[in-house]
């Protein structure tokens, strides 16, 4: 077994453990902290995938943005939830659904025969190429601009929803 595999397995276990704590934790603030933990583990996985830029984005957007928003929402809606009534009565059926979904997906993945090693060497100028592709009319300019318009719409929309009435 290679060192890389051991590291991967450790990180994967931490990540899944944190994710399970997110969905089963009784105190919602703890759920948010576990969520941050699992986001952080995903960032480490990106480092293993030799994509430091994606790891940075993961930290910046997910932890610095989305998780902060979530925590603020939790602090604002304090008292809107009884501490011991998080789960619906259907825990077992939900578990069966998600486990069978996982078994189907894992079986499919193992049947498809994906490559074991990346065939290509690491490109040096990856980041510059990515930046150029995002603003290249032949590349991803249209989705990029659509996303920017969407962000603007969301900004105005959430301001409208969140204002005091």
């Amino acid at each position, binding site marked *: 077994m290679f060192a890389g595999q051991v590291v991967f397995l450790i990180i994967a276990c931490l990540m899944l453990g944190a994710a399970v704590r997110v969905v089963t934790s009784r105190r919602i603030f703890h759920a948010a902290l576990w969520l941050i933990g699992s986001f952080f583990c995903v960032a480490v996985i990106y480092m293993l995938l030799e994509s*430091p830029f994606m790891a940075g984005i993961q*930290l910046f957007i997910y932890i610095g943005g989305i998780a902060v928003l979530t925590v603020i929402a939790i*602090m604002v809606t304090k008292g809107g939830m009884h501490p011991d009534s998080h789960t619906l009565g259907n825990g077992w059926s939900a578990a069966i659904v998600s486990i069978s979904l996982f078994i189907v997906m894992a079986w499919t993945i193992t049947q498809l025969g994906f490559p074991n090693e990346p065939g290509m060497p690491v490109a040096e100028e990856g980041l510059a190429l990515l930046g150029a592709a995002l603003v290249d009319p032949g590349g991803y300019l249209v989705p990029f601009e659509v996303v920017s318009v969407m962000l603007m719409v969301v900004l105005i929309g959430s301001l409208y929803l969140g204002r005091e009435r």
Partner: protein
Amino acid sequence: MTGLGGEVIRTLLGAFAMALFPLVVVVFLIWEARKVIGRMQDRLGPTNAGTYAGPFALFQTVADGIKILTKELIIPTGADRGVFVAAPILVVTVAIAVWAVIPLGPTGLQVVDLDIGAFYVVAISALAPFSMIMAGWSSRNKYAEVGAFRAVSQIVGYEIPQVLALLIPVLLTGSLSLQDIIRAQDIAFIFVVPLAAFSFLIACVAEVGRLPFELAEADSEIVAGYFTEYSGMMFGAFYLGEFINNLTVSVIFSVLFLGGWRGPWVDQVPWLGAVWLMAKALLVFNVLVLFWAAMPRLRIDQVLAFNWKFMVPLGLVELVTVAIADKTMESLGVAQGWERSAGLLVANLVLGLAIVGVLSLVGREAKRRRSFRRPGVGAA
């Protein structure tokens, strides 16, 4: 394999030394800040009056640290124990983690030269609000909670102008690596894009919560903000983390806008780079200390309004202006050397004058409207 092992050990040793470095420097910076503030306020600052603490009471901070270590760690009843203890650890960890990419010298004097160095700094500092939220939430204390709310709204807001200002050196260099940014500064960027440097400095002061942005721990309003309930070494961790953050933003400002380790004779003696960098950082740090000693505290709504109504638009306009000016000069054939810098400086000065003009117009308009509404008050 032995070569790889040696490499790993050397990196680990380097990381350890680099993690120790800010801790050691900060011990003396705390002394220096207290001395400077003391003089500003017509006091002496730390002295050897009671017990001897080295020449000029230089080791006062060490004595304070030993005292704080002997104190009892009190965890309030009803506090969320795990989160309460984890928060101070996270503060110091995040504060030190940034130092992994800071280049103290041309080569070798850096733990790792990430090609996304500048972005790494931003991404790691995005973790900082969480220690405050964790501390504020787990304390079960109203003041702590208010402090955490204030800290988060302030830090998340001021992150935007900070990142916008940081993008400008990146834009001029064409690289996110801090080494490349330093190497590109034949003329320090503060003389090329002074407006960006200005807004980065303001955003950094707000980010580390120094006066006039010291609302998260405003002691006359909410005791000590998010770390009200902490005592002993856990309080010490917050205090230390805060000072390390002050030093870190000073160093990052020096790297981005003052040319980092560049200075005379660095080519011959590489370790001199660390001296130059620390000298520049000390200069910036003392600017922060002077703010600290001289400024009054703003209100939270003033702080947030200043960010969203002035800093963010300023950052956006500055970014667009620099990008357009740079591209225009490139198409005119001036893409190198001091001519490009001079052109960008002119663009910045014009923009700065325009902003001052707009502000004075807006101010006059607001004053006129105020006097119109309340004639008795406005006329006086």
